[in-house]
């Protein structure tokens, strides 16, 4: 008989039909039965380029369309894992605002850009390069960092044209670290903190878990360290994610990390925790010494003991002096202590801080030991942009790679533009540099600027021609980096998916430009295409006789023993076999690190770390913060992990995440201490204007007990002018308020600490 369900369906159905009958009829006839599509799936390798880590990717393709990006479990950098940016990189491939093809500036056309062909653009650039290369120093390259062959080829192009203007858009802290390394060790290279073996970690305003560079190596070794039960102290004006994960948070004033480090060093020396044998054997300039002319020179030891007593440091940094003593004792008595200085230094940063933290590590003997600071081993071939033939020695290269602000100053100061041709690759200096407007003016003054951004970002907007580079999913891609243990890793993978726009591999473009720019430059580029460059590198890997293709994690001591005894079980015997293995597994690595190679770590003079350079005749007060007027707050700008990508790309998934501390996204947040909020009459969610003499920035208030009362913390990564619908006009850019390098300052300040006024917007 009729049960409840059929009866109601009948009544309901009857009524709906009577109502929808006519409507239903006409809708039906237009629809076609759907086609039968078979579904074929396959996986392909790739290498992520959204940050210098260069993680190995596995891309799942359904009917040729990439659908999922996961981690390559064989790759030593990420071991199958993927940070927020890696997983979101798929959205750049499908970005609706990608440039369809190369465009050149043309005032006649609305919007100012007219499409152009690749051939015409390359010939134009090649002819200009040939004309310009006659006199040295007329070409500049601004690139993300030299960690993949394309950037190195661009660097080589500039070197071939006789110019040293190869600007890496590295964070100020990285540039300062290069300078410290050059002065104390006399070498260039990459310092790696072996966190996983440290048992007490002291973070000095490091932003370890918020730093946007080589995310994967830091996060994974940090997790291993915490699982091994290490004690972690974070000293910094803001709690943040790093402080949240710490056992102890010491709120110190911004830009006092260096003073705090030397305060700790003072206690280590005074209470005998300093590693005496290490200092005796491998360090010079620590004790007082007399030079051969009999002149008495005070060593760093006496300078630290004299100047950085805990009481004085406590008064400068705002921490309690008994806390400093307790942390110093904990740090000194550890088996494998390690200190990490600022990794970004977007705000209030000076080279002194990097130097002071390095000195602390030297005093604690944490250089080139397990759980200490390691100088990563290099891949067995020179960088492409190194001058041909000579060993990469410091003497012939500039003391440190120039910063983009220096380039902009130089271009704007000289009467006629000193640079005629500028390449911008995987970088967005107009957005990421605090002097963005100055950089934009400089680029406008340069007659011809080539940008390789796939999306029309802030820098591309001021370029003369934009040649959209194909993304790593669409081309053969590579990356030359180091992993958390200092092992060199070279990754390379064939194209995973078909290109979605008329874009080309920028390496091929550079080679084509070099070929067309006259034989003086062409003979520096003995390769026909990017594939040949890869083959050449693989040939060098084979000839080096070290390392192996990527494999599952295994004890590195075993490989050291084998290699020492000259025995290698390698999975390839010819270049073709190695290439096939690399293509299948995703790359090559050399899982061995030899401690005690002082000749490699300190190539200068008597292979002893020279602390003499540290000797700043400066008082602690001069390097600590200047007291701001009481109604102003110190502006502390920090990078948000999800919002800072290499090349300034903005993706909806990343904008959607925002900060893990607040459930807000698509907006720039300013953290304020509860007492300060009450004092200024602000509440959670209010919109405020942050002002100083350089401009004003809007932000939303977040009241947080995790920040000092005299500091306001604003994350960078928002406020782009161009960059597609997921970037334009979203959030605001606090970097605009930050002052940059004051030339000729002994402290070599790279970012001046600024004080800001807060105004509530109704």
């Amino acid at each position, binding site marked *: 008989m009729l049960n*409840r369900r059929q009866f*109601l*369906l009948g009544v*309901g159905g009857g009524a709906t039909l009577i109502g929808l009958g006519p409507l239903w009829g006409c809708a039906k006839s237009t629809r076609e039965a759907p086609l039968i599509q078979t579904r074929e799936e396959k996986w392909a390798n790739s290498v992520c380029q959204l940050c210098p880590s260069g993680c190995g990717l596995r891309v799942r393709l359904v009917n040729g369309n990439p659908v999922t990006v996961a981690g390559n479990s064989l790759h030593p950098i990420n071991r199958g894992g993927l940070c927020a940016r890696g997983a979101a990189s798929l959205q750049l491939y499908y970005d609706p605002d990608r440039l369809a093809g190369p465009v050149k500036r043309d005032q006649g056309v609305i919007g100012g850009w007219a499409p152009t062909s690749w051939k015409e653009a390359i010939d134009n650039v090649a002819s200009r390069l040939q004309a310009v290369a006659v006199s040295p120093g007329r070409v500049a390259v601004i690139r993300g960092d030299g960690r993949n062959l394309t950037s190195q080829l661009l660097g080589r192009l500039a070197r071939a044209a006789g110019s040293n203007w190869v600007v890496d858009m590295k964070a100020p802290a990285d540039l300062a670290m290069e300078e410290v390394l050059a002065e104390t060790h006399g070498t260039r290279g990459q310092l790696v903190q072996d966190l996983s073996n440290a048992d007490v970690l002291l973070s000095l305003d490091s932003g370890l878990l918020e730093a946007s560079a080589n995310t994967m190596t830091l996060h994974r070794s940090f997790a291993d360290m915490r699982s091994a039960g290490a004690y972690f102290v974070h000293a910094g004006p803001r709690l943040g994610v790093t402080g949240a994960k710490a056992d102890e948070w010491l709120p110190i004033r911004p830009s006092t990390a260096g003073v705090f480090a030397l305060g700790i060093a003072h206690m280590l020396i005074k209470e005998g925790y300093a590693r005496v044998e290490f200092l005796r054997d491998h360090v010079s300039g620590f004790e007082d010494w007399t030079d051969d002319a009999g002149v008495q020179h005070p060593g760093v030891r006496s300078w630290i003991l004299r100047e950085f007593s805990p009481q004085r440091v406590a008064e400068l940094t705002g921490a309690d002096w008994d806390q400093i003593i307790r942390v110093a004792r904990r740090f000194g008595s550890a088996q494998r202590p390690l200190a990490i200085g600022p990794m970004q230094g977007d705000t209030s940063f000076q080279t002194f801080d990097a130097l002071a933290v390095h000195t602390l590590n030297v005093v604690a003997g944490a250089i080139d030991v397990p759980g200490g600071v390691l100088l990563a081993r290099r891949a067995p071939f020179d960088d492409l942009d190194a001058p041909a033939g000579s060993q990469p020695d410091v003497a012939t290269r500039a003391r440190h790679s120039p910063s983009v602000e220096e380039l902009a100053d130089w271009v704007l100061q000289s009467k006629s533009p000193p640079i005629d041709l500028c390449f911008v690759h995987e970088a967005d200096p107009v957005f990421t540099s605090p002097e963005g407007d100055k950089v934009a003016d400089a680029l406008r003054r340069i007659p011809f600027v080539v940008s390789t951004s796939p999306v029309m970002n802030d820098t591309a907007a001021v370029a003369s021609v934009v040649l959209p580079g194909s993304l790593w999913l669409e081309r053969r891609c590579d990356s030359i980096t180091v992993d958390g243990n200092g092992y060199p890793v070279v990754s390379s993978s064939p194209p995973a998916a078909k290109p979605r726009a008329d874009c080309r591999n920028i390496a091929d473009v550079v080679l084509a430009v070099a070929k067309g720019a006259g034989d003086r430059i062409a003979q520096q580029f003995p390769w026909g295409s990017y594939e040949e460059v890869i083959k050449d590198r693989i040939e060098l890997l084979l000839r080096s006789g070290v390392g192996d293709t990527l494999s599952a994690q295994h004890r590195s001591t075993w490989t050291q023993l084998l290699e020492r005894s000259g025995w290698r079980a390698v999975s390839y015997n010819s270049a073709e076999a190695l290439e096939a293995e690399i293509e299948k597994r995703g790359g090559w690595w050399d899982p061995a690190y030899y401690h005690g190679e002082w000749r490699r770590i300190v190539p200068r003079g008597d292979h002893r770390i020279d602390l003499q350079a540290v000797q700043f005749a400066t008082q602690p007060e001069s390097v600590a913060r200047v007291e701001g007027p009481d109604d102003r707050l110190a502006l502390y700008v920090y990078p948000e992990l999800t919002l800072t990508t290499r090349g300034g790309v903005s993706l909806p998934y990343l904008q959607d995440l925002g900060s893990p501390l607040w*459930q807000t996204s698509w907006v720039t947040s300013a953290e304020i201490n509860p007492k300060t909020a009450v004092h200024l009459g602000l509440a959670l969610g209010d919109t405020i204007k942050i002002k100083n003499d350089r401009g004003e920035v809007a932000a939303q208030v977040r009241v947080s007990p995790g920040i000092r009362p005299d500091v306001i913390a604003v994350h960078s990564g928002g406020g782009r002018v161009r960059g597609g619908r997921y970037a334009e006009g979203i959030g605001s850019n606090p970097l605009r308020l930050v002052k940059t390098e004051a030339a000729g300052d002994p402290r070599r300040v790279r970012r001046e600490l600024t004080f800001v006024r807060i105004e509530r917007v109704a």
Partner: protein
Amino acid sequence: MNSHHKPMPRPTDPLGQDWALVKPVVQSNPRFWFVVGVLLAGIALGATAYIHQVRTGLGVTGMNRPVYWGIYIINFVFFIGISHAGTLISAILRLANAEWRRAITRSAEVITVMVIVFGVSNVIFDLGRPDRAVFVLTHGRLQSPLLWDVCSISVYLTCSTIYLYLPLIPDIAILRDQANRRRWLYRILALGWQGTPRQYRLLEKGIGVLMVIVIPIAVSVHTVVSFVFAMTLQPMWHAAIFGPYFVVGAIFSGIAALIIAMAIIRWAYHLEGYLKQIHFNYLGILLLVMTLLWFYFTFAEYLTTWYGAEPVHMTVWWSKFSGRYAPQFWAMFCCCFVIPFLILSRQQTRTVAGTVVASIFITIGMWLERFVIVVPTVSNPRLPLDRGFYHPTWVEWSVLLGCFCFFILLYVLFTRFFPIVSIWEIQEGRMNATRELTERARAYLPDPPTHEAPVRGAGIPAPAAEGGLA
């Protein structure tokens, strides 16, 4: 019911005295169309708001995560609350044989039937997928309190509709014979009513049965509406008091609504002769009792929460007393207790106007009470996620306005189709009321002493001097 009811003679000139009751039905007056026009405008606004919401999605309302429920659910509880006016009051008064019920029972029952429709439709407005509303019937899960609601409300709707329709039949018969228009409609609806004693006996028995059934159903409806909230683990929802608290709140807002409705029809149709001062006075007393009862339940709930001081509950508690929802809470408290108590407790202010003013405050107060129950709990979830902020949008307010206008429109249309005061009960009252009252009074008073005086000397001392006892 009195058993020896004499058969009522067929009324010879039924409309003579009660012409005022039938006038609205037979005579059209110009103001009617103006009122309908205004109401239709309100309904149109509500309809456009709802269509906009269906096309764009629930995002046009002010609700978000975690504030998943808002004005629609408040409307649902509010309208179902008002629906208790009818059946509960008219049923209880009939059961208690209170003679003064005769003039007000029908207007109460009409409120019930008309307003339940809007209670239920507000749930449909709240659905993300209204086109799948039939799933509740075809794939219903009885374990869900929402299904208990569906069952009890549908039973309540059918029961109160029949409870409205039965006493209406004699009046429809009168209209069938006397009215000058729509006779065909009245002939169908009168179901062949001739007024024979047998028909009256059956009618009285029918009303008697329904009157007894509808009271537990009405109580069950609002208990089950409260279970929608009480059965969750949310702070200040998961409490045992919710059942009775909602029923008291329902009766409370029901009587208030009834008083307002009676005052309006009294003014509009000049029924001062039928809805007299005494009715408003008695209902005012009933309202006073309910105000105190409501205060008692509210006091009990908030005291137990405050005294228990569980942190999760206290977050919601403080958000009501001194936090973001303090204005609504204290407005509710004044509207539901302070003002009505002051007006209704003094004889000279418990006039028609006084009770109406009190009722308007109570209606607003009770809507705020539902707001203060739903929104603070939903916007302060257990986990320290960001607190939710709820700012209702024009869509929600216009749907609320639309519902009110539609309800008033239906009520007005009812008064144009059927007499709002039950004619035959008034006439029956005129004829039998005085006799029945005296019989009943005699039944209550103590029996006269037995016929002879008590025998003296049987151990009962003789009264002293005759005057001593006086």
